[in-house]
């Protein structure tokens, strides 16, 4: 396995001058372009079709303190009319409005979750849209490690290429570890609920037997007293 390149800034500058190394410079520029631009996106998007009326919502249950990054674009299948617009609304589990945009064909929003719960993003077609064609919305929704800005990490720590890819893999492994811990705590919570329910079932069943006996004893006592009063016994 070959190792990554060792960067030598002085030799890079020296290589930029000559004609034979213009190719080197062009390649380097292309590489920097790949690293820093959005031409090759790292997360992919799902496409949804929006009916002319009605809302389409997607939601996700997210923990506290997680970065969420999302991008949306509208494509219309019907090219004869001017580009249709949609409205977007993103709400937090407690009902706070995180992002609200009307009359837009594309946009993006980013936030860090302050509370754990269900985050909802709703799209609907604006009333101004004429024509009955279906709209396609491309939603690029990234949370946690997928939303991490690797370009700034690469710039700050001056790493690139294979080292950057290995750093990304390391980030993925850390995310896996965090997810495991989260699943462990969720399982512990559920275990507590199960055991409480188990104890409740036992206690309530015994109590139900007790109430049955008490009620029937009271019945008998009352009827006996009643018949004695009526002088039937």
């Amino acid at each position, binding site marked *: *396995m*070959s190792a990554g*390149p060792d960067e030598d800034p002085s*030799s890079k500058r020296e*290589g930029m001058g*000559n004609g034979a*190394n213009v*190719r*080197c410079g062009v*390649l380097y520029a*292309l*590489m920097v372009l*790949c690293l820093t631009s959005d031409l*090759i*996106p*790292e*997360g*992919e998007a*799902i*496409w*949804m*079709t929006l009916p002319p009326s009605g809302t389409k*919502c*997607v939601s*996700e*249950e997210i923990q506290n303190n997680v970065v969420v990054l999302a991008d949306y674009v509208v494509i219309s299948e019907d090219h004869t009319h001017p580009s249709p617009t949609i409205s977007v609304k993103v709400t937090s589990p407690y009902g706070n409005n995180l992002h609200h945009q009307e009359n837009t064909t594309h946009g993006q929003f980013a936030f860090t979750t302050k509370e754990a719960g*269900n985050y909802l993003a709703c799209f609907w077609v604006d009333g101004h849209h004429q024509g009955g064609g279906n709209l396609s919305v491309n939603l690029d*929704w990234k*949370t946690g490690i*997928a939303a991490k800005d690797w370009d700034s990490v690469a710039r700050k720590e001056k790493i*690139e*290429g*294979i080292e950057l*890819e290995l750093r990304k*893999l390391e980030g*993925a*492994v850390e995310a*896996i570890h965090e*997810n495991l811990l989260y*699943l462990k705590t*969720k*399982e512990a*919570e*559920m275990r507590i*609920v*199960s055991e*409480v*329910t188990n104890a*409740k*079932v036992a206690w*309530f069943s015994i*109590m*139900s037997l007790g*109430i049955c006996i008490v*009620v*029937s004893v009271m*019945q008998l006592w*009352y009827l006996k007293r*009643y018949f004695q009063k009526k002088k*039937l016994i």
Partner: protein
Amino acid sequence: MERGERKRGSKLRIYALLLVGLLLLSFVRDLSALSVTVNDVECVYEYVIYEGDSVSGNFVVVDHDIFWSSDHPGIDFTATSPAGNVVHTLKGTSGDKFEFKAPRSGMYKFCFHNPHSTPETVSFYIHVGHIPNEHDLAKDEHLDPINVKIAELREALESVISEQKYLKARDARHRRTNESTRKRVVLYTLGEYILLALSSALQVVYIRRLFSKSVAYNRV
């Protein structure tokens, strides 16, 4: 002079290698586990760039207030290729994993069909993974086998992450069932106690009426 030329030549080769490596490695796709409410049919589309990419994913029906779970067997799932052929289908399940190799590139359609009238919330995760294969290696002599190994490693990690998302969704569903059980235990037993007391009071009232003088005096 010669050493300088060699140095510049090797730098050129390294940059070309890096560029191709970056181009190929960045074509690994990822997605967050989104939930969508299925009333009748809900379709999600995903674009597969390379033919032969492995498309994997999972979905879980997050339990809502179903009274009897035997009444509701689950939902159907179909994956359709851009040509219109059904590539993968699962019927009547409350959650499952799926994986298939994309026969061609293009826009793939993943549909959830809910046969019942009550809307269901489905949490799904779809991942399209590409590993540069020997054909790409042979085409471009600057492509290093290390990029293939890194891509394989990344795919393995993505499969672990995918499994974790599935477990998380299943855990959420299990948690809802547990909460529902707890509520049912409390409410139903309290209702049972009240009904018991009520029915015995009604019994007493009825017996009293049987023995009362105003109704059928000589019947008892």
